């Protein structure tokens, strides 16, 4: 039932869209003094993108939001209002998993903000030093992990951190820290930190590149003026450059936020769909996957899957709105 509604909805939407499109062009044409003919080409240019984007992205997104208000009662899809959310937040079977995943996801995000972005900014600051030899080489090498797929990254680190292979204990022995080695991925206390740091390792290239671009855009006169006033080195970075690249830092923060609350692949490749040990690396993406598709003994549940996707949508929407309407407006921008 819901399936046919989906199909019908999309074609109706298409038709309506095409109609409003021609309406717009007609009235626009009437306003024109020189009476242009109907500008069909605008519709032709826009239509393919609009159709694919609306049918595959926007409609399913809203359909998913709608499904979160329905559940199967006596084998029939019935409107249940907010009861799915009540179950997710409060029911004994669901709530523990959900709050655990949400907490882990926040922790995942906090580690990225505290480790990935500062390292990215520091690397960008070093790379942007004028006339640095080999900057292109460093840039290329440090950006490499970002291009690798999660599968490669996940398995490589699984091997390296594995106590069977002994690469990590060997390396730690070189700096005299062998006694500190532990099978981090297998311990509930450290697994989430280890997975987050693997993700940081993979993605540090993105903040590095964006900050690097922002630093290159600072005009040389500003830096020269600072030097004339005797502001150099650390002071120059923190007092002159950092305020100028704040908008770029805002962008990498929101990109990190959206990416982290949508993450799934790395946890899935490193720790599997159960996000072990003992759910300690479970984040919203893996919870959504297990809930929607089921895993081992657990059956897939479409309505609860849609409910979790809706919660993720609301979290991301809240983050993006906070950025667009509060943070971005408060940040002072300088025009050169």
């Amino acid at each position: 039932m819901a399936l046919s509604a989906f199909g019908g909805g999309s074609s109706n939407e298409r038709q309506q869209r095409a109609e409003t499109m021609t309406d717009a062009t007609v009235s626009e044409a009437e306003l024109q003094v020189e009476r242009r003919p109907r500008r069909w080409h605008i519709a032709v240019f826009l239509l393919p993108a609009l159709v694919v984007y609306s049918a595959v992205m926007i409609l399913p997104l809203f359909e998913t939001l709608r499904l979160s208000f329905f559940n199967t009662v006596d084998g029939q899809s019935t409107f249940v209002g907010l009861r799915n959310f009540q179950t997710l937040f409060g029911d004994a079977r669901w709530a523990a998993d959900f709050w655990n995943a949400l907490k882990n996801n926040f922790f995942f995000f906090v580690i990225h903000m505290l480790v990935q972005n500062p390292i990215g900014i520091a690397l960008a600051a070093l790379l942007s030093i004028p006339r640095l030899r080999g900057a292109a080489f460093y840039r290329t090498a440090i950006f490499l992990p970002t291009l690798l797929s999660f599968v490669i990254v996940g398995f490589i680190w699984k091997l390296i951190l594995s106590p069977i292979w002994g690469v990590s204990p060997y390396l730690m022995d070189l700096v005299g820290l062998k006694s500190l080695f532990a099978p981090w991925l297998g311990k509930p206390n450290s697994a989430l930190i280890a997975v987050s740091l693997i993700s940081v390792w993979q993605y540090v290239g993105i903040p590095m590149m964006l900050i690097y671009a922002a630093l290159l855009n600072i005009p040389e006169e500003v830096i020269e003026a600072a030097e004339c006033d005797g502001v150099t080195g650390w002071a120059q970075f923190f007092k002159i450059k950092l305020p100028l690249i704040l908008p770029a830092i805002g962008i990498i923060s929101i990109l990190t936020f959206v990416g982290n609350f949508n993450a799934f692949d790395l946890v899935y490749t490193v720790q599997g769909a159960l996000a072990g040990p003992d759910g300690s690396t479970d984040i919203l993406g893996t919870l959504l996957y297990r809930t929607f598709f089921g895993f081992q003994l657990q059956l897939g549940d479409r309505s609860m899957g849609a409910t979790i996707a809706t919660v993720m949508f609301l979290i991301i929407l809240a983050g993006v709105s906070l950025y667009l309407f509060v943070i971005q407006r408060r940040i002072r921008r300088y025009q050169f």
Partner: protein
Amino acid sequence: MSKARTSLSRTALVHAALIAYTLVAVFPVFLTIINSMKNRNAIFRNPMQLPTPSTFDLVGYQTVLGQGDFALYFQNSLIVTVVSIALVLLFGAMAAFALSEYRFRGNTLMGLYLALGIMIPIRLGTVAILQGMVATGLVNTLTALILVYTAQGLPLAVFILSEFMRTVSDDLKNAGRIDGLSEYSIFFRLVLPLVRPAMATVAVFTMIPIWNDLWFPLILAPSEATKTVTLGSQIFIGQFVTNWNAVLAALSLAILPVLVLYLAFSRQLIRGITSGAVK
């Protein structure tokens, strides 16, 4: 330039820090590749050592190439990525042209509607996307993946391309109109060739997430005939966890095409990111 900025010890420190991080970034990849070419004993006894004539062994590669259907997976990934990029570029450029060239009612609204997808990940609609694909019989076809990736790539493509199309000179387009070119010819013959650098940037941005995606192949097209390289190696490696030679060889095989492409296009890619992304 002041002395403080170029003093020797300071430069040495900077290089030391950068080299240290470069090692952190590259070492795991390097370690995987050298060990994939060694025999089992050498992998465990001396993981840090380069393969020597006595430890050199390609048994891992033989296992991988003999067992998994990697040629097919590779072909699937290639088809999906290339067709999606082509559609994103064509549809994205057309929409971007309409938005930047013509004034019509709803222009701004349309731009905002298309930009929505830059921030909201398409993954959140998975539940209904799967339903739609089941209803239209597209599950386990490459078409399903192509449609999803096209929709996913369009918002950013329209956004970047319309910024660039605003910089194409109006005089040129009007000259074309006076010479009797249709709006379609103006787009395909005048504007498209001029925004080619921007198209390359968009292509790279679109390509990476598509090639590396695990979520949609896992959900929409997990059948043997439609597996992509990413999903194929995930499952293959999962089966061979105890055969270290095979796992290391499979990882190296998965890294190599990305590595070669990256080394060939890194300048283009980095220029694209540093020039187009943040303004």
